[in-house]
């Protein structure tokens, strides 16, 4: 089947290009953290440390070497899986690999929730375009568009944790480091809700476009029921758009996680990232971006595969 081979090579080519892009991004991030005012030595040493101690610390952190050399060494390490050491001495890999799974759990659940709810809500809106439900959905979608995560999180904590006392206000990690399930509910909602607005509008627009396709008009003339029309004739055509929307949400979900983790004291990588930026810790920041970037690359590949599968027989 030459077509399979051609399609796979195209996907790999796409992946290859994106890996290069990730490398470019890492250069940008590493350099920008380094150029921030004050450097890692000043940020992590005690106040009132003497100039000598400062110089010694800079030498220890390698800050006295040229940027290109430091970045080359770090990237070299990246290839062999060694993410270098953070400004405070712990290996970057340990810091990130402990925190990243929690953020992936939070982000993954939020993304899943967002996509499922967005598709169902968009379908409901499409059943009666322009109807009261459709207008209500687009209005609420607009509201959630604008509400930043910390606003949603504050209100959720106030209502469900402090007033109603139903859910824990804070994510408590058990000894093994995993977060109790009911402590996940509010953070996931806080990250998912701001994403809902975008995804509902996108899927709604994709459904509206697909509804104008001739084969949908033909299906209507065949007297198919509304729900069958939606599931068998509209939704398959919309999958690529849903996949694309979900993937672009990943970056935003990660951004949201950073904000929500501080409020729920959630042991994720977001908190590590903000502190790393305060500490001007280039290896740690670049390490986090590398791992999250790799994660997003995987998801992008998945979305491409979905798009390729969805348009398999039609070309």
């Amino acid at each position, binding site marked *: 089947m030459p077509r399979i081979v051609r399609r796979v090579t195209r996907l790999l080519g796409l992946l290859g290009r994106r890996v290069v892009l990730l490398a470019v991004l890492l250069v940008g991030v590493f350099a920008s953290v380094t150029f921030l005012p004050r450097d890692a030595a000043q940020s992590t040493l005690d106040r009132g440390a003497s100039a000598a101690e400062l110089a010694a610390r800079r030498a220890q952190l390698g800050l006295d070497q040229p940027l290109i050399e430091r970045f080359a060494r770090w990237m070299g390490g990246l290839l062999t899986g060694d993410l270098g050491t953070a400004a405070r001495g712990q290996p970057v890999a340990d810091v990130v690999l402990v925190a990243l799974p929690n953020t992936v759990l939070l982000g993954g659940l939020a993304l899943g929730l967002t996509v499922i709810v967005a598709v169902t809500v968009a379908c409901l809106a499409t059943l009666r375009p322009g109807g009261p439900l459709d207008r209500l959905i687009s209005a609420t979608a607009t509201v959630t568009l604008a509400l930043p995560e910390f606003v949603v999180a504050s209100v959720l904590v106030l209502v469900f944790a402090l007033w109603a006392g139903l859910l824990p206000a804070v994510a408590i990690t058990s000894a093994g480091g995993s977060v109790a399930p009911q402590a996940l509910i509010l953070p996931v909602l806080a990250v998912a809700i701001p994403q809902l607005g975008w995804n509902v509008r996108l899927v709604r627009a994709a459904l509206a476009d697909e509804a104008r396709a*001739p084969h949908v008009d*033909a299906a*209507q*003339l*065949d*007297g*198919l029921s509304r729900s069958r029309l939606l599931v*068998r004739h509209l939704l398959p055509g919309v999958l690529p758009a849903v996949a694309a929307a979900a993937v672009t949400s990943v970056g935003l979900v990660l951004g949201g996680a950073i904000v929500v983790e501080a409020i729920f004291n959630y042991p994720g990588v977001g908190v590590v990232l903000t502190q790393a930026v305060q500490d001007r810790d280039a290896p740690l920041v670049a390490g986090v971006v590398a791992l999250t970037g790799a994660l997003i690359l995987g998801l992008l590949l998945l979305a491409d595969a979905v798009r390729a599968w969805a348009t398999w*027989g*039609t070309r």
Partner: protein
Amino acid sequence: MTGAAVVEAAGLVVGPGVGPAVLEGIALRVHHGEIAAIIGPSGVGKTTLLRALIGAVPPGMSVLTGRLRVCGHDVLAASPERLRALRRERVGFVGQDPARRLNPRMRVRQLLGEMAVDAGPDGPRRLLSELSLPGTDELLRRRPGQLSGGQQRRVALARALARRPALLLLDEPSAGLDTALRAELAELLRSLARRHGVAIVMACHDRELVDRIADQVLPLGAPTMSRPVEQPLPERTERTEPGPPVLLGHGLSAWFGRHPEHPVLSDVDLRLAAGSASAVVGPSGAGKSTLGRVVVGLHASASGTLELDGVRLHPRAERRGREQRRRVQLVPQDPLGSLNPRRTVRASLTRPLVLHDRCPAEQRPGRVIELLAAVGLAEELADHYPDALSGGQRQRVAIARALGAEPDVLVCDEVTSALDPENAEAIMLLLARLRRERGLALIVISHDLRLVAAHTEQVLALQHGRALAAGPTTEVLAALDDAGGTALTDSHDPVGRAIRPAGLPPRASARKDG
């Protein structure tokens, strides 16, 4: 054929409610086993009538007055559920362009199974055999994209028949079928009507099919749009002496993106004499349009030499000299997109005058009037917007705009393909007249061999990007006709014209080819 009529329509008026109605005073009675044909030029409302029969009038229009009963139900007063049941069990509708009306993601087995009355596993197989299609598993597993044009049309028909309908509505059933398949279709429809008692109503352009099987014929009135200006159709434009070659192309090749290994056009030579009209023909995908785009400089990834009066032309229009860009002009294919919807006709025509400063500022309004007259359009059209004009009028304005630059070479890329026969003929005559009066050299890209034979002297036939034959039109066409005649037609475009459903803009993603 006695018994209750399957379709009873009287005094039907369908229209947008404001302005002239599209259909007036329609009366139709079709009994079981009877075949009715609706005939008339395109755009007169045949499809609208067909859709009205099952209560699916196109958006923006409605059935204003009249009585309509189908299979014993009053369609106009039916509730949505009643209407849905009627369409689901009693009426099968097969639209034009089946390639786009079959769900691209469903396999043939599902397409038929979804509507089938007898849900047995071999139901789809029997349906396919009825339509002389191999009921093999391999075919049943295919998706519409993997079927030929003819196969797609028959699968669509099979899907309509799967529900054992009492009434079958067909829109241009014979389009895209070659002569043999059209004969089979006629047989099938006749047998459906006679043996299974199915009432059939079809909108059809194909006189032959109508004469052969239609029991009654419903002609719809002439189109209400403005009458195009035309002189009587001379048998052939008289031949003028071919002048010195103005445009020479040698070893022209072109490809898409960064894949020169799959060229769309390879090693084509082109010779265009001043004042001559040469056509470029060939099936869709042969590279006709690509050649035109290379000539006007819209296709950058091309190679080979192109010379205007001996001076080399850069493949990209932006890099060509101002005078070179003035002397070669393009008339685009799709009338819907040939004019900027946000600009009045006057603004569109004034622009070339300014760009190539053909005349001082104060003379420009007068010049616009002349251009409109040259293409046979009334002066007051100047202040209209394109959406107020018909397809034919828009193509004429596009030609006028090209003339504004007083070019030496005019590339017409399928300018008649979206027009009905009468308008197409008028445009070709207009081009012929302009050629004579202004010594224009014409490159006419078309798949309408009848027009090409009537109005061009030279022809270049392309197939799969290669030059098949070149030379005087009459000899080349005759030679190719003897060689089986199918070389120049293709499965999609019949000898007649593929009517693109008016009003539907090309979907954004449609790639430009052929």
